[in-house]
Structure formats: structure tokens, C-alpha cells
């Protein structure tokens, strides 16, 4: 018995998906930029290969990251992925050892029981059958969780499950049918032949006691094969493409490929690698504070895959980066979203063809109109007076004069030569335009402000605004040191250029998104605070910090929803009743001030309150002002 017609659906599906994988890989590879091609080649034959294999094992099969964030959800993913992998692996070995001959076609392993119905009755065979039953049970337990999750997401610890499109439903049904139909088919066959282990054997003999097991088994073998075949054929047009896509993603990432700012193979593979697990939804404050549930990464990526218009939801995100931290697949979500934002103005770069089995570069992709300069009204920058330290308050800081005043006081106290670049208001730094996807316009502002900075001759640029700080660091080509004021104050303390009294106040610190996850400035602000006050934990430290809700990243959110997020975030941050909620961003300060009765202040304010003003302006502080004397002055 070498062949039976029921294996045909499975075979068609299997060979289809294999051929598809090869063709698609070629297309993906072809669309990579030259440097990325080289990276991938180097990665494939180098150390990255081993690392990728390890990561595939840990993440694609074991799902370690999901297990850490949410053990029940992780178990569900692990039992399905790792269990299925084990079933195929041990099934192949089983067919190889116990089958008629070695090196069988794949279907022999999958339908081993059908072709060897009497297998597994005694000795080593029974032990092996036990193992196979155990693996099947492992998978079925995960499947059980998956079914429950679909109907009541809370059971697996999820607040929200993702929505499905109709093809996904068919694929999901066939996926769900695979293992139960295998269980029943194997059980019935076992029941007829008196074989099978604790699961299939027991179930089989019980079924055979009142059912014609022999006749019933055959249709279930057909069902098993059909569900497998259907699943494989639908795989490229459903979200289940994430299973193979993640393998590509891991190889590419370990070879050093990153998203970049344009759509391409890598961003596309990332979009396909999303399993819609929904962890991003649970992390999202838009969801848990404002009840908005249509714009989270899982939804955005689904919309991208379905070729839907993403212009509204792409812009409806705070860009706080909390989801980036937690994505178990490691998709660079914010970078992918930024690509969609840029496409709001340029039109999509790719389109789906053949019902989405392939995606092709858009032929009529329109370049950005408006060849003219938008901000040519900005005045020529005059050569200003030369200075050492340049202070740039930023637009928002002009609405929080307590911050700029404090910085003036601190800068004066330091005795350094400094000047205030935007005292009477400057141009915007360009980051808000970038966040809206208008890179070209942003570049005009960047050039304008860069010129002003260059002409000042300063060696250090200090800004009070994390939004400005991020863009200065990442998109300006400045050959001077760029510091956020928290870092600058930290340096002043380290170099003993300012001295401060200790204010006996219990304070909490909120890490702004752009300063924390955005530019990885975590420790300096806290170090500065510890110099002047008693810093207490909030429960939302560092990369786990919250967004204040005021983020410029979101262009669509209503002020009412912003307020909901702000009130909720402020309540969480002040749950341990600090005297002051400290932040280091004018926008966070402004947003929180309207959302809590707790006093909100910027770091610069408490430092300015504590700073000891030196008695004389020049000779250096160290020699002229002993600490004891300084305290008396205050």
C-alpha cells in the first residue's frame, strides 16, 4: 500500500507552497537594495546563520518572547508551532524507521498510521507511538486554547482579539480541522486494528466499541488531507503567511538589514511576519486608556496586507514606541508605520497582484508634487555672536516659560558662555513634519536651523525639548555635541560647575517617549533628580514608560481622547502619591498639568530651585565658593 488518492489534496498543497516559497523568495531578494543583498549573502554564509537558527528555534517554535509577556498566550503559540514541528520531525523519523523503506515522500510521514495501521503495538514501537500521541495531545491542548481565545480573548490573558477577513476564516477553519481530524482518523484506524497509544488507542477502541471504525476512518483521512491542502494553498493570502515569513525575517534581521524609510522587501516581510497575536494592542494606551481599537499595529499591518487605505489609521498613533518594545516577532512597527505615513502623500509604493499572492512595485507611483520650496519665507540667518553653548528651547518650551527661565538660571549659574538661540521664537525643528511623513519639507527646516547653529560657532547644543533632541541627533548633520538639558545638567554636576541644595521632596519621574525609547536617555535624568530630591519608582520605568497623551506623533486623535490618556497615565504615575511628578519634556509637562492635581514640574525647574547662585561671576566656582558659604547665601 504505497499510495491512496486521499493524499492528493495534501500533496497539491505541499508542492504549491514549496514552489510559492521559492518564487516569492526570489522576488523578495530581487527587490532588496544592493547593500542589503550583500548583507544577506554575507549573513547567510557567516555567523549570523547559526544565530538565526537559534532564534528560529526560540522564537518561531518556542515563542519565548510571547511566553514571557503572556504565558498562556505563549503556550498556545508554542504548542501549535513547536508541537507541529515535533509531529513532522518525529513523524518523518517514524516513517523512516518503521515504514516499508527509507526516504519516503512527505505524505508517508503525515499519514503514517493509514499506511501502517498495525504499528505501535509492542516494545519500542509502543514507546514511539506513545511519544507521537503525547505530541498530538500537546498540539490539541494549544488548539483548545486557540478556539477559546477566538471567542473569549480574556481566557488567554488578552483584552482584545484581532478581527478576521473571510479568507482568514476559511484558513483558520482548515487549521483548526487539521489536528482533530488527524486525531479521529488515527483513533478510528487504531480502533480497527487494535493499535495506538494512550490517546488514539484509547479513543479508538472506545469508538470502535459502538461504531464501524474501519468504514468511518477513511473519510476522516480525507478530511485530514483536505484541511492540510486547503491550509497550504490559502497560506499566502492569509495571515498564516507569518509562519514562513518570520523565518525570512529572522535571517534578514540577523544579516543586518533594517526597515529604512521606504517600502521594500524587508518592510513587506515584516508586514507578513505579524501573527496578529495582539500583544501590541494590549500595550497600546490608545486601547487601554481611550478605548480606541482600530489603529494598533496588528490592524495597520492587516490593512497593509489587504491593500486597504491606511491614510487615516497610519496617522492615528502616538508613536510612543511601546509596541516596538514588546513585539514578539521583532517587527520595527514604528518604522513600518512611518512608511505608511509618507505614502499618504505619495501613494502606495506596492500593490497586490493575483489576489495578494504577490505584491509588485507600483508602476504609476507618483513622486511628491510641489517641487517648490515651502519654507523659503524663512529669513536668511545672520552671523550671530560667537558662543560656546547654544540653548534651543523649542516651540513647546515657549508655552512653558518656567522651563526656559529655569534653564536660563542654570546656564547663568554655570558661568559658561552661552546664548539663547530661539529666545524670540525660531523655526520648528522639523520633527513634527517628519512624523507626519513630510520629510522633504522637514529637510528645509532642518537646513534652516542647521545654518543658524553652524554660524553660532558653539561646541555644544542644548535643548529642552526631547522632540527637537531626537531630530537634532538623528537627522541633522551637526559636528557639535547635542545634549538634552537633562544630560547637560548631569555634565554640569559631574564637572562641578553647578552646586545644589538637597530639596527634601519625594518625587516620581516620567520618562518622555522621545527621550526614553526614542533616544535612550534613561539614566541621566534620574541621576540629576537624585542629586536634588528623593526619587521614587512609578512602576512605569524606562522602556516601560507611558505616553503622556500629548504626543505630536498623532495627528488624528481628538483632544478628548488625548485627555483620557493623559488622565489615566497621570493617575498611574502618581498612584504612590509623590509630591511632584517630574518630567523632562515641555509637552509632557503641559499635558500632565491639566490631567492631575499633583504638582508637575520639569527637571530644570527643581534644579533651578535647588541651584546655588555663585556670589561672584568669574573666577571659577570651585575656588571662590565653599559649599558651607553657598548654603548661607540660599
Amino acid at each position, binding site marked *: 500500500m504505497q499510495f491512496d488518492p486521499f493524499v492528493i489534496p495534501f500533496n497539491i498543497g505541499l508542492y504549491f507552497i514549496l514552489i510559492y516559497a521559492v518564487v516569492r523568495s526570489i522576488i523578495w531578494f530581487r527587490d532588496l537594495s544592493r547593500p542589503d543583498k550583500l548583507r544577506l549573502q554575507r549573513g547567510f554564509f557567516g555567523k549570523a546563520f547559526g544565530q538565526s537558527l537559534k532564534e528560529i528555534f526560540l522564537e518561531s517554535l518556542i515563542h519565548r518572547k510571547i511566553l514571557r509577556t503572556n504565558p498562556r498566550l505563549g503556550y498556545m503559540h508554542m504548542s501549535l508551532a513547536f508541537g507541529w514541528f515535533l509531529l513532522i520531525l518525529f513523524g518523518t523519523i517514524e516513517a523512516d524507521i518503521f515504514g516499508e523503506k527509507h526516504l519516503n515522500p512527505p505524505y508517508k510521514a503525515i499519514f503514517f498510521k493509514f499506511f501502517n495501521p498495525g504499528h505501535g503495538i509492542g516494545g519500542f514501537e509502543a514507546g514511539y507511538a506513545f511519544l507521537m500521541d503525547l505530541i498530538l495531545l500537546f498540539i490539541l491542548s494549544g488548539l483548545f486554547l486557540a478556539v477559546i481565545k477566538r471567542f473569549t480573548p480574556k481566557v488567554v490573558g488578552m483584552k482584545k482579539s484581532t478581527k478576521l477577513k473571510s479568507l482568514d476564516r476559511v484558513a483558520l477553519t482548515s487549521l483548526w480541522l487539521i489536528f482533530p481530524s488527524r486525531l479521529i482518523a488515527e483513533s478510528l484506524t487504531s480502533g480497527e486494528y487494535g493499535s495506538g497509544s494512550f490517546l488514539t488507542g484509547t479513543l479508538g477502541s472506545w469508538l470502535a466499541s459502538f461504531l464501524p471504525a474501519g468504514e468511518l476512518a477513511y473519510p476522516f483521512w480525507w478530511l485530514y488531507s483536505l484541511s492540510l491542502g486547503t491550509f497550504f494553498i490559502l497560506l499566502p493570502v492569509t495571515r498564516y503567511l507569518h509562519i514562513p515569513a518570520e523565518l525570512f525575517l529572522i535571517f534578514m534581521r540577523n544579516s543586518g538589514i533594517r526597515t529604512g524609510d521606504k517600502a521594500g522587501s524587508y518592510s513587506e516581510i515584516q508586514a507578513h511576519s505579524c501573527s496578529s497575536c495582539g500583544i501590541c494592542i494590549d500595550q497600546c494606551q490608545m486601547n487601554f486608556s481611550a478605548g480606541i481599537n482600530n489603529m494598533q499595529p496588528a490592524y495597520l499591518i492587516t490593512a497593509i496586507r489587504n491593500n486597504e487605505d491606511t491614510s487615516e489609521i497610519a496617522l492615528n498613533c502616538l508613536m510612543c514606541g511601546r509596541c516596538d518594545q514588546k513585539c514578539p516577532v521583532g517587527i520595527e512597527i514604528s518604522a513600518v508605520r512611518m512608511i505608511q505615513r509618507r505614502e499618504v502623500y505619495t501613494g502606495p509604493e506596492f500593490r497586490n497582484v493575483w489576489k495578494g499572492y504577490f505584491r509588485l512595485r507600483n508602476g504609476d507611483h507618483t513622486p511628491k508634487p510641489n517641487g517648490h520650496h515651502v519654507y523659503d519665507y524663512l529669513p536668511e540667518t545672520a552671523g550671530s555672536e560667537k558662543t560656546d553653548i547654544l540653548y534651543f528651547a523649542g516651540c513647546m518650551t515657549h508655552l512653558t*516659560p*518656567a522651563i526656559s527661565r529655569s534653564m536660563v538660571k542654570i546656564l547663568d549659574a554655570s558661568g559658561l558662555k552661552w546664548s539663547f538661540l530661539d529666545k524670540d521664537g525660531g523655526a520648528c525643528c522639523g520633527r513634527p513634519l517628519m512624523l507626519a511623513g513630510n520629510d522633504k519639507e522637514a529637510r528645509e527646516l532642518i537646513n534652516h536651523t542647521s545654518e543658524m547653529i553652524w554660524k553660532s560657532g558653539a561646541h555644544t547644543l542644548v535643548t529642552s525639548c526631547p522632540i527637537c533632541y531626537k531630530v537634532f541627533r538623528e537627522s541633522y548633520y551637526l559636528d557639535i555635541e547635542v545634549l538634552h538639558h537633562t544630560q547637560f545638567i548631569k555634565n554640569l554636576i559631574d564637572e562641578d560647575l553647578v552646586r545644589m541644595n538637597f530639596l527634601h521632596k519625594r518625587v516620581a519621574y516620567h520618562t518622555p517617549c522621545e527621550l526614553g525609547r526614542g533616544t535612550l536617555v534613561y539614566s541621566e535624568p534620574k541621576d540629576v533628580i537624585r542629586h536634588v530630591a528623593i526619587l521614587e519608582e512609578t512602576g512605569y520605568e524606562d522602556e516601560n514608560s507611558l505616553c503622556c497623551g500629548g504626543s505630536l506623533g498623532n495627528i488624528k486623535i481628538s483632544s478628548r481622547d488625548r485627555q483620557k490618556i493623559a488622565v489615566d497615565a497621570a493617575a498611574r504615575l502618581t498612584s504612590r502619591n509623590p509630591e511632584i511628578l517630574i518630567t523632562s519634556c515641555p509637552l509632557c509637562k503641559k499635558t500632565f*498639568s*491639566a490631567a492631575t492635581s499633583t504638582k508637575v514640574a520639569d527637571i530644570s525647574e527643581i534644579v533651578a530651585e535647588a541651584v546655588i547662585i555663585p556670589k561672584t561671576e568669574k573666577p571659577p566656582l570651585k575656588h571662590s565658593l565653599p559649599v558651607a558659604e553657598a548654603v548661607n547665601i540660599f
Partner: protein
Amino acid sequence: MITGNVVVVGGGVAGMEVAGQLARSGCMVSLIEKESSAGGHIKEWHHLFPDRRNSMEVTDYLARQINHDNITLLTGTTIARMGYGKKVFTVDTENGKSISADAVVVATGFDLFRSERKEEYGYGIYDNVITSADLEVMFRNGEIKLTDGRRPEKIGIVHCVGSRDEKVGNIYCSKLCCITAVKQAMELKEHLSDARVYCFYMDMRMGGALYEETYRESQEKYGINFIRGKVSEVGETIDHKLIIKVEDTLVGRPLRMELDMIVLMAGMEMSKGGEQMAQIFGLKTGENRFFAAADHHYGSNESNVEALFFAGSCTAPMNITETISHARAAAAEVICYLRKAER
């Protein structure tokens, strides 16, 4: 005459008036005030709008109202707990007193908006940015001067500070700030005849009796200038002058002006004390956080709790006239209730 014990919470204009009215009708009244003396916000006011009479005349009237044998004035007292059973309230004060009452009148009034919450206006940051309340103190002291002792020559008055501003969570109009601005502008001119005074407004809301006439008078007799636009920022020049950023919306161009002094017309908010009462008595509040009366038209003194009534600006911003009328209506409601309960 009527008998009954009534607790009045809040010894401001409304509380004093309602206590006086009830005492004269025969009720025994406990008037509870958290401060060391009764009087409320009016104590801090120098002259009242629109007729600019001295506020002392009204406080004297109120003092006479509560000078009655049936009134026990408990100053420096706040309420800790309260219970209601068998138609009797048991009100426990923080300092350990327990009072039983057949009815309660809540007259907790309002708090002035804390202007430092509008950080962009620089209150508490720049010298010479003051509030309408600070200016009244200056009027009372008879001297208008800057922190360095000079007399201001150019003064800006900013309307709607903490009112009609969803950024501070108050979308309602405090209704009295426009007329206060006009009144204070005229008084500033009386003190400093050479000074120039500019009012920055979004809308001039002159709905009360004699308000519009006062507005007209301020233009005609005092030469007050009105500029339509919401001030967005206040800054400081190198020589410590204040600089205001506003759009002159009627011209359609941004306007910048240097000023010596800025007066912020702080709006009215539900009082902290009122919020505590809402918790203790389980009282409903509206979207504006003031108490929500049982009916907007014919039940503005009634609450969602039986035998508990509202008087004055704890239900909405009100001027003195309205507050006294509302307090009298509250007294009438209490008497009506006690009569029914007697039967």
C-alpha cells in the same frame, strides 16, 4: 413660625443669607465655615460691579443677617462625616462635634481658578503678572504699583483665564470676569489717570443688569481699549517688561505689545470644599463639576438627596445679586420642606 434644625455648610454670601432668612423664620441654624470668619470671597473684594459700591456695605448687611439668636456660627470647622436616618441628618465635624439637623443647605461657593495652571501666562513666573483678586487687594490698599515700586503705565487685562478653556478642563463661561475686567479697568484709570489699559477678550459677555451700560461707560469716560483675541503667551523682554502675544482677530494680524502689568481674570471653579461635600453627601455634579441641581428651571435649589438643598454659586457661577436671590429661594425651599415634614 416654623421649628427645625438646619445645618448650613459654607459661610459665604449664600450661606449667611440663607442662615439669616431661616433664623428669622424660627429655625435653629448651625452655620459651618472652614475659615476663621464668615464672609467668603466678598471679604477680599474692594468694590462690586456694576455700580462699584464698597463691598463692605454688603458684608455689613450679611453680618446683620447672621446676628440672630437662632444662629450658631461655627468657624474654623469642616465636616468629616454625615449620616441620614429617620429624616434626621447627623453631621460630624472634624473637631469632634456632632450636630443633628432636619435639613442641610450646602452653600460651599466657588474657588478662584489657580492662574499658575495657565503656565503660558506666567503667573508666579514673571513679576507683575497678577490676578483680578490680587488687584482687588491693591485697590483696598489704595496703591497700584509694580514689584519694583514704580507705577505701571501700560496695563493689559486678560479675559477668560481658566474659563471657556478646555485645556484646563473648564469649558463653561464664568460669566463675571468680563464685567469684573471692565470694572477693574475703570478703577485702574481712577488710580492711575495716565495709564493706558487694554482688555484682551474673546467675547464681551455683558448679559447682567447694567453691565452693558458699564462697558459703554468704560469706553466713553475712561478710554479703556478693547482688543479681540485670546492671549496665547506672555514673555519678558531683557529690561523686564512683559510682552504679550495675541492675534488682533478683527484686523487679522498678530499683535505684540509691551506692558508693565498684566491682570488675569481668573474664572470660577467648583470649590474643593464642595467636592468634599459631594463625596460625603453623595451629591451629583455636572460636567462643569459644580453641583447638579434637581431641575434646571424650577428646582435649582433641590439636590438628589432628600432634605438637602443648594444655595448660591456652588451650582454655577453667580454674581452677588443672583447669589442672594438663590439663597432666599433655598430658605423658602427649606421652610416648605419642614412644613411638609411637620404634618
